[in-house]
């Protein structure tokens, strides 16, 4: 479970790269990678260590104004959990 007051930052080893074959972004780290959809890319871009989880949800609610805030919160927390499980986030406590 992720605290909504932490300010997640992508780990040093992570690099976001545009994949021209699919038009999507890839999150690359040693020997692995994740293919991101648009929402996940938007979330990953906010993992700079400056935004709290609450800030991210607020911001994305404004960008995706046709999606319910609760839905956005679920997506944000779910994706951050995936990243944290893979050791791709810092500042998590």
């Amino acid at each position, binding site marked *: 479970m992720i605290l909504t007051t932490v300010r997640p930052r992508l780990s040093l080893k992570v*690099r976001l790269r545009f994949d021209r074959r699919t038009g999507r972004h890839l999150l690359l780290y040693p*020997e692995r990678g994740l293919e991101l959809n648009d929402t996940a890319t938007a979330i990953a871009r906010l993992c700079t260590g400056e935004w709290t989880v609450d800030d991210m949800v607020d911001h994305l609610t404004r960008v995706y104004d046709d999606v319910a805030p609760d839905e956005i919160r679920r997506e944000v927390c779910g994706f951050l959990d995936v990243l944290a499980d893979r050791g791709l986030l810092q500042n998590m406590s």
Partner: protein
Amino acid sequence: MNNEHRPYTLIAELTYRCPLRCPYCSNPLDLAERGNEIDTDTWLRVFHEAEALGIVQLNLTGGEPLLRDDLELLIEGAGKLDLYTNLITSGIPLTSERLSRLRALGLDSVQVSIQSARSSVSDRIAGAPSFHRKLDAMQWVTSLGIPLTMNVVLHRENISEIEEFIALAERVSADRLELANTQYLGWALKNRLALLPTLEQIEQARIVAAEAKMRLRGKMEVLFITPDYYSEYPKSCMEGWGRRFIVVNPEGLALPCHLAHTIPGLRFERVTQRRLADIWHHSEGFNRFRGDEWLPDPCRTCERRAVDFGGCRCQAFHVMGDAGMTDPACSLAPGHGHIESARAQAGRLAGTLIFFDYRTSRGCFSR
């Protein structure tokens, strides 16, 4: 090209030369006869062709990639292509200055392997004094702000040190700790008797690793890679033959895995003679075990065929003598008895000292 067969990673084996002589080396046994390394321009062209084919990850490995004096040029070339470049090294021979240069040219991460958490054991397993230089190398990596993976190949002589490995990885501030049980191919198969741990050793190590993984969540990624000799099902070797990886070996042979050319009867091609895309799509060797047409029983009707693709072709060949059979590591495989008897033997020999057959040092430095 559909995404089913898209390579994401190029494993560039820059050289078979190495200052160490580890008895589980994954290089082929006959490496002493191999002397013709492809040159800088060929590698740079291969990186270019690889990126055009969809590759985003580059693992520079060997042998010891630091022995290539054009490593700077290669990393610079990979950096221009925006490849995620990972240097897989023993840490020898390295200086802080060279590492700093490689970082500035685009190196993304470094993996340093250690043989034991104890210097005398590490040096004995490596077959050369090296432990302290590895510690220095790891410290340079982290102090330059480069993400560090500490890699340990686990076997019966070092697996009981698992807590020490974790403590050492914490001490050097590694981002990742890869606790990888030996894959019993190449030199490791030759030395299997001296290397294969007992079931009890594996279970204990697994528990310690799982605890560390929880405790270090968000700080260090801890990976424990079970040996397939103790798994119920085989690994999806290379995530499927000719599916996600291309290995180019020091002589320029393009392969689906680093030992594929040790399987007789398969034809592989050189990057000096054909474009990488043509090799990937059309070469006989890459197509031989793609898809599921070739699958033997019991894989043919097994639900797991889309998960493990029948396992490792090299293991099927080197243990069973037929690369087209189910990987004997699978508990459902007709050849699984070979694996069970190796396990039983490991149990009987627990605690007995067995000497290693060291990787030949010829081919290391030309003489």
